[in-house]
């Protein structure tokens, strides 16, 4: 009852000895994630918290530990290289938390990734969690609860908001994916929806989008044709002024495209319920599930 990550996930943390890498590696271990290795160039041979071996390269970490997922905390100037390194080593799932990676770097990395088997989530994302089994990322674990609702989102704290609403009302989550707020990201809304559609235990979806781009519209038109379980969406940024980048590099309305109104219309047209406010996302879904 999950996608991409579960209790069999073996995680390597790239940038494990940096301050946020160490902090969140600890957080993931505390949650129960099986962290099998860390990578920091030049620190190979050390042990993280006395129990996780640190390697110089992902290649070595993969060979020695069989890690099948990575969480990247490498600073932005070097993060695209870290993504390519993980893909080269054959790591199946790459979760890049790092914020602020130059778009040109991501564009090149993405082009190479298309020819690899690895799946990238992020960058600039909170990560992915299958409650009760595996947390890869920076989200607070305790707001989640195992269950049957899939959550897909471009934002971090706004996702926590929605998840918390579900948990407080007794509705658990199968898997929650933060796909990231950058203009070029590894896994789109649409791909995430497709993954959830193959999971028999995900009974309904929450789709959280924001202004900019057309990823939400693409997901909507696929859902209309291929997905018949309940979906509730929320789009942030209805009040954002055009032409300004709203924190996330991807959140910008330009040339009249990527507006909240346009996205909401596309979603509704696909038969998706759109929550009016961020405070009513949970209730909107529960309302549908009751009927």
């Amino acid at each position, binding site marked *: 009852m999950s996608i991409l990550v579960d209790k069999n996930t073996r995680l390597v943390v790239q940038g494990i000895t940096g301050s946020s890498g160490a902090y969140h590696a600890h957080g993931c271990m505390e949650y129960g994630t099986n962290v099998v290795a860390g990578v920091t160039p030049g620190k190979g041979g050390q042990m993280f918290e006395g129990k996780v071996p640190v390697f110089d390269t992902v290649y070595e970490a993969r060979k020695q530990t069989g890690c099948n997922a990575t969480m990247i905390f490498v600073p932005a100037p070097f993060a695209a290289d870290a993504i390519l390194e993980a893909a080269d080593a054959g790591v199946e799932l790459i979760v890049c938390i790092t914020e602020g990676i130059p778009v*040109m770097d991501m564009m090149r990395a993405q082009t190479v990734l298309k020819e690899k088997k690895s799946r990238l989530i992020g960058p600039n994302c*909170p990560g992915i969690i299958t409650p009760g089994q595996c947390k890869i990322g920076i989200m607070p674990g305790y707001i989640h609860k195992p269950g049957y609702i899939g959550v897909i989102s471009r934002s*971090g*704290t706004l996702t926590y908001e929605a998840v918390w609403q579900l948990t407080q009302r007794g509705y658990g989550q199968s898997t929650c994916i933060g796909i990231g707020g950058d203009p070029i990201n590894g896994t789109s809304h649409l791909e995430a929806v497709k993954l959830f559609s193959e999971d028999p235990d995900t009974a309904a979806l929450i789709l959280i989008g924001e202004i900019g781009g057309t990823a939400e519209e693409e997901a909507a038109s696929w859902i209309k044709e291929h997905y018949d379980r309940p979906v509730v969406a929320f789009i942030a940024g209805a009040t954002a002024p055009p032409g300004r980048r709203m924190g996330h590099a*991807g959140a910008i309305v330009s040339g009249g495209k990527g507006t909240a109104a346009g996205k909401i219309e596309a979603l509704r047209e696909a038969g998706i319920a759109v929550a009016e406010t*961020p405070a009513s996302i949970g209730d909107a879904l529960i309302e549908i599930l009751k009927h």
Partner: protein
Amino acid sequence: MNIHEYQAKQLFERFNVATPKGAPAETPEEAEKIATSLNTSELVVKAQIHAGGRGKGTFTNGFKGGVKLCQTPAQARDLAEKMLGQTLVTHQTGPAGKVVRKVLIAASVDIEREVYFAILMDRASGMPVVVASTEGGVEIEKVAEEHPEKIVREPVHPLLGLQPFQALKLGRELNFEGDQLKAASKLFLNLYKLFVSLDCSMVEINPLVVTDKGEVLALDAKFNFDDNALYRHEEILQMRDVHEEDPREVEASKFNLNYIGLEGNIACLVNGAGLAMATMDIIKYAGGRPANFLDVGGGASEQQATEAFKILVSDKNVKAILVNIFGGIMRCDVIAQGIINAVKAVSLPVPLVVRLEGTNVALGKKLLEESKLPIEAASDLAEAAKRVVAAAKTG
């Protein structure tokens, strides 16, 4: 980040993108000197501000037009004197206008034909794309609406870059021939080099002109840079003109806060960009108007929270403040302490509604309570929005 026209010209010169000769002047004397060095009897003097509509604008001293043609260095000097230090009002500046601190003195050209040429990062395909049209000098959005068949799109392979054959193909689409075709395709290739080397998210030449002498020149340009990559372009960072920015945003950027000023009267302070946008939305939904977007980030310090708060309070339009924090990495007690420090430092001129949730929420709430400050605590987001809107109306 935006740059001035004269700065765009400097970037074009650096990458051998053909453009009319010219340089910026800060004084009438300098203007005269540049005009003399240009050695031409067709000159143009252009006010340098970050706003469109300069040619049709009016200075607050009554002088009309921020773009003027002239023939002699002495005339260029006179025009510069009338513009420098004066405030220019255009349809994009708002009634307050913008002070002209520099003028561009350039060789003026006689235009035979205008086309449109832009390179931008296409997020849907994840690669750069060239957008070109024979309809130059007008807004491309309008062309796209009325004559979509007149817009050419050419995707560029991210690892190969724009290839010479593509530049020729584009040149032909834009009806260039003979020597002009060669000049145009060279310009396109050099512009692509510039686009990649400087981490642009968009470079738009509008118009790209053919002069009466048959030259192909980039006349006016708009640049968008990828903020994420500015760290590796010190020379672009140097081009920032803080005079052209909202002072509230300049102050916020000093503390690495993500702030965008808006017109409303309810200030908000939020962690995370998505939640910050959603908070603005819910304020509007509850019947209020947000005064700003403010994302203090995932791991804001106490000091950042304090500085953020000071910026909100300094906005005279603000009638109430909403703090909305969902603590993940950010601890609620840290943000609570930051608010308390700020309120103590600047006093609280307007009502403050705080909604805390997430990591260390109990500790954060306790700190706020014990501070005995006039802070309204809200238990969830919907209630917080309702209360802050009510407070702004009575306040």
